[in-house]
Each structure stands twice: as C-alpha cells, then as structure tokens.
C-alpha cells in the first residue's frame, strides 16, 4: 500500500480517465441533468455516496462470497443486485430522515441504480485490484478510494458542464444543435482539454 498508488488513482479517476469524459460512464444522467447547477450538484453528491459505498460492499462480496464459492461468473448479477438494493435502501433512509431532502432529489435518486458509473467502478475495481481471483495487497483500500475518486471525477465534470450550460441559456445557439448536440460537443472539448494530463508520472 503506497502513497504513489493512491495519488495515481486520484489523478486517473478524476482527471485522466475521468469517468464521464473519458470512460463514458454515467453519460445519460450527465447529459440530462447537467442543465442546471443545483440538481447537478445534488446528483453528483448522491452518486459519490453510492459509488463509495457500493465499491466497499461489492468488494467484500467478491472477496468473501464469490471467490471462495467459485461463483465469479455471477459477478455482474450480484453486483447490480447489490447496487439496486443499496439505492433502494438509501431512498428509504432519506425519506425517513429528511422528507425535504427526499423531495429535493426527486426522481434522480432511483436513477442512480442505472448509472453506468456505479456498476462500472465496481467492475473496474475487481479488474484492477484482483489478479486471478487473488486480491492485491491493499486491494480493499484502493477499491474504496477509487470509488470516492470516481465520484469526485463525476462531480467535477457535472459542475463544470452545468456552469457552462447555464451560461449558454442566454446565447442564441443554432436551433438544430440546441441542448443535446451542443452538450456533446462541449463534453468533447472538455475531454480534449483533460487529455493534457495524459502520461502523468510522479
């Protein structure tokens, strides 16, 4: 377990291989919800919470359930069930604790289940930190940290995009590229800009 590895995970997940701008995970919600800053921030925080927790839970399940019983091919099904259950659980808790917050999130909360980023980071953790069904030393902490960083990367892209799209509401954009097409073009330019961090070495 060394610091350089954590730093690499951070730079990778947030900047170089940004979950949205580089891996295309979570695009649907990104394009749909990044129109205004407030919902974008709310969605990002919720996603970050879910990616962090589900990274932990899926790691534990993979390590202590799937591997010992030779069920690694059930990875996809079990992970997505875990995530769906967890999101459902979060929904119930939020509803109980703070109805105002629940109403604020609205439909965005259940939508996190199908956010590619969440399942994506769980699968990524397994691919990166397990070698032939053996866990790499420090694997749990790396996976957890990667879950957090993926959430941070998602938040960064969302905040930047929502700021931009809010400003663009005052512009007279050509009608055929309004909304979605232009959002993709902007994401494309942002992706180009973030490529500046390629080849990072400490």
């Amino acid at each position, binding site marked *: 377990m060394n610091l350089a590895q954590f730093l690499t995970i951070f730079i990778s997940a947030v900047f170089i291989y940004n979950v949205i701008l580089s891996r295309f995970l979570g695009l649907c919600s990104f394009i749909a919800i990044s129109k205004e800053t407030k919902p974008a921030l709310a969605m990002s925080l919720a996603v970050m919470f879910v990616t962090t927790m589900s990274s932990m839970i899926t790691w534990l399940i993979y390590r202590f359930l799937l591997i010992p019983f030779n069920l690694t091919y059930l990875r996809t099904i079990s992970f997505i069930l875990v995530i769906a259950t967890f999101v459902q659980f979060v929904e119930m808790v939020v509803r109980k604790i703070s109805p105002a917050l629940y109403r604020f999130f609205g439909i965005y909360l259940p939508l996190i289940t199908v956010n590619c980023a969440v399942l994506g980071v769980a699968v990524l953790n397994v691919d990166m930190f397990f070698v032939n069904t053996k866990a790499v030393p420090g694997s749990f902490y790396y996976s957890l940290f990667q879950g957090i960083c993926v959430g941070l990367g998602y938040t960064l892209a969302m905040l*930047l995009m929502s700021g931009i799209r809010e400003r663009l509401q005052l*512009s007279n954009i050509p009608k055929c590229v309004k909304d979605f097409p232009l959002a993709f073009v902007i994401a494309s330019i942002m992706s180009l800009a973030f490529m500046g961090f390629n080849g990072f070495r400490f």
Partner: protein
Amino acid sequence: MKNRLIVSFPPHLHKDESVSKIMWMVVISLIPTGLAGVLIFGIDALWVIILGVISALLSEGILQLLGKRRVSILDGSAFITGLLLAYNLPPKVPFWLPIVGSFFSIAIGKLIFGGLGQNIFNPALVGRVFLMASWPKYMTTFSPPLSAGAGFIHPFDAVTSATPLAILKEGKSAEYISYLDLFLGKRGGCIGEVCILALLLGAIFLLIKGYISWHIPITFIFTTGVMTYVFGQKGLFSGDWLLHILCGGLILGAFFMATDCVTSPLTGRGQIIFGIGCGLITAVIRLWGGYPEGVSYAILMMNAATPLIDRYTRNRVYGVK
C-alpha cells in the same frame, strides 16, 4: 458592431470604442510577433499564417451564409482566431493543417455556440488541441531557427529539433541555449511563441491602451514561475523559473489567449483566480505530465470553469444585501 450592453452601474464615461476596433487593435499588437516568426523561421511560416487567416475568414463567411446569419468577418475576430492558431503551429506543417485547424476553430470553437461573445472556449486553442490530438506527428516536429545555419550546435537531435521544454521533459538539461537567445526567439518552437521580445511589445501596447488588464497575465506567469522554481529538477527551490517563463507558449498564451474577454472571468477577483488556475495546471503538466507543454490545456480547462468563477465572484450590487 457597437456593443451596447453595459454591465456596470451609472455614472458612465463614454469611450469611443467598439468591439470591432478593439479586435483590430489586438491584431495590430500581434503583427510584431508574426514578423519575428517569419524572420526566424522563413517563408514557410508566412504561408502558415496566410493560410490560417484566410481559412478562418472563409470558414466564418461561408458558414454564416449557410446558416443565414449576418456575416461578421470584418469585425476582426475571425482574423485573430486564424492568426493565433497559426502562431500556435510549428513552421513546417503541411499546407492543409492550418486550413483544417482554422475551420475547426471557427466552426466548433465559435459558431456552434452562437458566434462572437457566446463561445465558452478560446477558439484558437480549441483548434490547436484538436490538431494536436489528430496529427501529433506534424504538431510536434519542429525546425531550428534559420539563423542557426551550419553553426548551430544542437546538442541532441539534429532531425526533429526538439524544443527546450521537450528536452527538459526528457530529464536532460537545457543549458545549451542562453537566456538572450530565448528572449529573442532563437530556438525551435511554434511560429508565434518563440520571440518573447515581439510578444512583449504587443502586450505592453495592449496594456497601456487598456485593452487587456494585468490580472490574468501577471498571475498566470507568476504562478507558473513559482511552481517551477519550487519543484526544480535538482530538488526543492532549485528550479530555473526564468527558463520556464521564456520557453513554450507561456508568454503568448498568458497575454493573448488567456486574456480573451469572452472566455475569461468578468471581475478582477475572478481573473486572478483564473490566472492562478492556469498557472497551476500549466506547471503541473510541465513538471509531471506526459506532455512538455501545458498552456493550451490549462487555459481551456479554466475556460470551462469561467462560468462558475463568474457566478461566485459577482460584484456587489448597490442597494442589495
């Protein structure tokens, strides 16, 4: 096109200026750099500049006609975009490179957002990073300055003639070149970035006339200098910050591209944040990233953050708590 939109509070003083006039003034301030580039690199550089500018003007004209919008190629902004894009290219690129680059700058960097004043990203830089990602071979093949001739002792690679920053990136020392040579532009690099003298002449002109303000360039350059000094090659606080400031596209970027008022924050406070951000990212990429130069990426990233910066550094409105 007279800009009648006023964003501050009365009383106002009237200045006889229009957006168009400011644009052409910026063009004039860039002429010394262009001349220097041609002098240093030869007639190839002149062709790149001409092709870049003409392609930008034609692209804007044709696309605006097709989109049934008012043709605005005379306001100077397309000219600047084409010029700046050309200045960001190595001198011996294939003829079609500046043409495609300018077209992309105008179409995707500017018009798709609705035209002048509405783009989020600096159009010339959008074109540059597009070209860099698409044809890296052409964008990183530099030629030595003409004045070099037979007497130029290039330490490592006589064929690709790497820039000083590229040599630094490989971990080797860049002591073969003197500060004076760097200042005058006797090095390999992009057409408009090498001659610091010419760039500063134009920059001082713009500063005196008030067309750009000091906030962004000074904080940008200062931050990059501090970072490269602190994290030097031979240990902490040993970095050659002067070398870093004179090399690469820092001066060109800080004075002429980061200061583009459309894509940078409105208030002084916001501009300082912008400048520091650009400086930090540039330094980080130069010091630890894979690319030798990071100015274009840094500016584009801060362009993306500008709407947010503007939102949180608004001036207090008189009478509102």
